[in-house]
């Protein structure tokens, strides 16, 4: 499915390692299964050839890893970024979370990444291996004698179905085109929730969030959640490390998190990708993005480094709080 191959990436990384442009490579390493790919640092060509993988399951957004990895790498660190990752990259730069000089960005094209849950929905559990051939995916399971062939488009992740941009907004070098911002229907689902009555909406979120096990995966993967110490880990904050004692707390964790990343979230979708309970957490953030667009004009976090986000900026054209209520009333 991907236009670019593992070999091309290894070749690029090896060249940059060999000519000493970089001394480490942030890439994808093999996990237990083919679909279980893990961000890994490679320090040599040998390591790359042994462990580097690239497939339709390389969805992880590497930007956040740079906060720790860039400082830890002796020289520059090479990072492969998909278009959506570059927005997070800029946003983190805006927040001074790593040193741009320490990073060498190679932008890679992306055809959309696969959602393993969708694969499992078609092929069932017990997946042994997943191969890729053109637009098809061949899935071998414990229970089928023959590998099952499925259409890669059918198992695209939600965030890739609603891809907002194929444009690389930050890079040192590109493998492929710079790409363009594209039209997407990513706010349709938010609009559907907005159209609900408050009771229906409450029931919807109650149902979704009740599955939360407070594993913190959403927070840990989120490129906007890079605090030195998260309020949920800080004993002095009064809200630290609580596993949800009741439905109120499990909702509050996600709502507080959505508030903390409001105006900073680039809509990369990592929160929903990593959620083991398949809670559509990205919808909370998208609601904020939609509101910010409507209240302050179109704003895409991370589109440029150093942008002033509407929520931490003041202009005389800003709408007055009262206007928010006027709009709400006129909608009703």
């Amino acid at each position, binding site marked *: 499915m991907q236009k670019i191959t593992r070999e091309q990436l290894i070749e690029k990384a090896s060249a940059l390692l060999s000519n000493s442009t970089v001394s480490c490579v942030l890439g994808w390493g093999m996990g237990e299964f083919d679909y279980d790919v893990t961000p890994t640092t490679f320090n040599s060509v040998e390591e790359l050839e042994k462990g580097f993988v690239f497939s339709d399951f390389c969805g992880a957004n590497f930007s956040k890893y740079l906060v720790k990895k860039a*400082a830890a790498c002796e020289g520059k660190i090479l990072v492969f970024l998909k278009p959506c990752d570059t927005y997070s990259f800029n946003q983190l730069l*805006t*927040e*001074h*979370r790593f040193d741009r000089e320490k990073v060498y960005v190679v932008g890679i094209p992306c055809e959309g990444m696969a959602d393993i849950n969708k694969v499992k929905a078609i092929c069932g559990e017990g997946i042994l291996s997943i191969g890729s051939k053109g637009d098809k995916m061949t899935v071998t399971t414990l229970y089928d004698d023959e590998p099952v062939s499925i259409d890669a488009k059918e198992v695209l992740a939600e965030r890739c179905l609603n891809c907002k941009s194929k444009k690389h907004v930050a890079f040192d070098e590109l493998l492929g085109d710079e790409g363009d911002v594209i039209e997407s229907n990513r706010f349709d689902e938010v609009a559907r929730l907005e159209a609900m009555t408050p009771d229906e909406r409450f029931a919807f979120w109650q149902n979704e969030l009740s599955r939360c096990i407070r594993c913190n995966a959403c927070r840990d993967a989120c490129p906007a959640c*890079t*605090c*030195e*110490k*998260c*309020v949920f880990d*800080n004993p*002095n*904050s*009064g809200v630290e490390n609580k596993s949800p004692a009741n439905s109120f707390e499990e909702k509050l964790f996600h709502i507080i998190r959505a508030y*903390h*990343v409001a105006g*900073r979230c680039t809509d990369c979708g990592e929160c929903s990708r990593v959620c083991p309970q398949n809670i559509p957490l990205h919808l909370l953030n998208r609601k904020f993005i939609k509101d910010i667009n409507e209240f302050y004009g179109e704003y895409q976090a991370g589109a440029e480094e150093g942008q*002033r*986000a509407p929520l*931490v*900026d*003041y202009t*005389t054209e800003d709408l007055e709080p009262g206007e928010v209520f006027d709009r709400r009333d006129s909608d009703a």
Partner: protein
Amino acid sequence: MQRVGVFVCWCGSNIAGTVDVKAVAEALKSEPGVVFSTDYQYMCSQAGQDMIKNAVKEHNLTGIVVCSCSPRMHEATFRKTAAAAGLNPYMVEIANIREQCSWVHKDMLSGTEKAIILGKAAVAKVNLNAPLTPGESPVTKRALVIGGGIAGIQTALDIADAGFPVDIVEKKPTIGGKMAQLDKTFPTLDCAACILTPKMVDVAQNDKIRIFSYSEVTDVQGFVGNFDVTIKKNARYVKEDICTGCGACVDKCPMKRIPNEFNLGMDNRPAIYIPFAQAVPKVATIDPNACNMLKNGKCGLCAKVCTAGAIDYTQKDEYIEEKYGAIVVATGFNPISMDKFDEFAYSQSKDVITSLEFERLTNAAGPSAGKLLRPSDGEHPHTIVFVQCVGSRCESCAEKGKEYCSKICCMYTAKHAMLTRDKYPDTEVYVFYIDVRTPGKNFDEFYRRAVEEYGVKYVKGMVGKITPEGKKLKVQASDLLANKQLHIDADLVVLAAAIEPDKSARPLATMLTASMDTNDFFTEAHPKLRPVESPTAGVFLSGACQGPKDIPETVSQAGAAASKVIGLLAKDKLTGNPCVAGSNELICNGCSSCANVCPYGAISYEDKEFRMPDRTTKVRRIAVVNPAVCQGCGACTVTCPSGAMDLKGFANLQIMAEVDAICK
């Protein structure tokens, strides 16, 4: 654990009438930390304060909760009481059970219930209070006056008189403002120029006063005692220090058909001009939109005739940065636009004019050299109709007029009518009014003279429609007292247009973080007791920027503002507010969100080395708050994603404790 004393005030019957104060004192006794709880008629009185002091000694109190009026009223009082009893003044919390409780509740039951809840919140907060010590900041002993009309001039003169340097920033090429455009002044009828221009000269000659004319304030940073202001001196293409104001350039300039703003466009001026003979500074200014040399590089006549060599076509806008201890806003007013008042035919006929235009028509230095002539044909008008309250007191016409009374129109219209009858007794003068408002020293006498001695025809009622017909203006009006319709063929109609704050006031208020009302008049810190101070410390109000005013009122307010400024500048140091933000460097991400939202520019960043748990060191970017600049607004604390930023005296934990106490 704190030892908290609770003091519930009756405020006479203000609180005790709706709140069972004894029940409140009793209920708060069992709150955590409370060791003493009582009530008293007037806690702020000497006896009440003594009661607090004694209780502190007797019960070894470490914290005090006073359930009384708004902290804006008496927080300072009770802090002093605590200090006198040996406590840190910031160990006092006020529960507002008057404005937020007894005054808004009608029945004892709900009033008492809420008072107890508010008291519990204050107790919960004071349990987490820590002693705070305010810092000090120096005072820059220089004042800035924004606006060079009579208000600004008087304020500047009074401040300079006390020995402090003052700068006036005026956006026009000369100081003088609206008063310079007036002819005579009510109620004594002395000529405006005769009393204003000597003051303008005083300003020019005072070595404590600098005038930045043709300039505007573009940026204000800092805080009371320490404002950093950027002033943009617009290029006037004439070197101010060399120009002698001889006027040779003005005479020779070939671009002579530019509408003259000073005469409200009723005559023309050249592209290089001096607004009027007594202008201060008396320096020519080139209008860049009209000058052929600046637009097309052709001409250059003024440079040729200037013997002083003052013309400089290459002059650029200049930005000046200066420090000030106090800022006085004196941005004044303008008549509102008459464009939307079609019924009065202002845009259809040259002979329908505003009162300010009438001033210029009767002024000896005006377009008609003081002869009252119709603008359309230069003939003497025999019937003049004055219409009062055009756009004033207009609740139904909010989209084009103003709801408020413009205050000065009744008097200047009486003046215009009287002067017209005095100079031209053959002229019939009508004044249409809603009410005639003349509260001022010798004002009513003045108005009665206009009616009784000069025979001005005052008609109670509004003009409905004015239609130009040939040389006449057909005026349809109603006489409410006679209950009949009037039809008058007038030669000239004068509209007493409502006045509004200058358009520059709104952006200026944003720069100063000074508040405004819905009409864009600056708000005073207290409408009765602090009328010349804005709620923003160090910003003072002078003249019509605060509300419609006549000259005597403006001058008295200007003097009052000056005295407040002098009081501030006389101090060497100001005691700061200890309730400022601070960043916990251990959890700060250095993300800059706080600096982005800080309206005072109080936050900067530094790289600091940290020892990590694994004994390595790490350099991280962290936020640092300048406590002298921080005003304690708290914007940073709610923006900080990690909760590193906190406000002393209003810590996140304290506020959460209050919320918890209220929700329990």
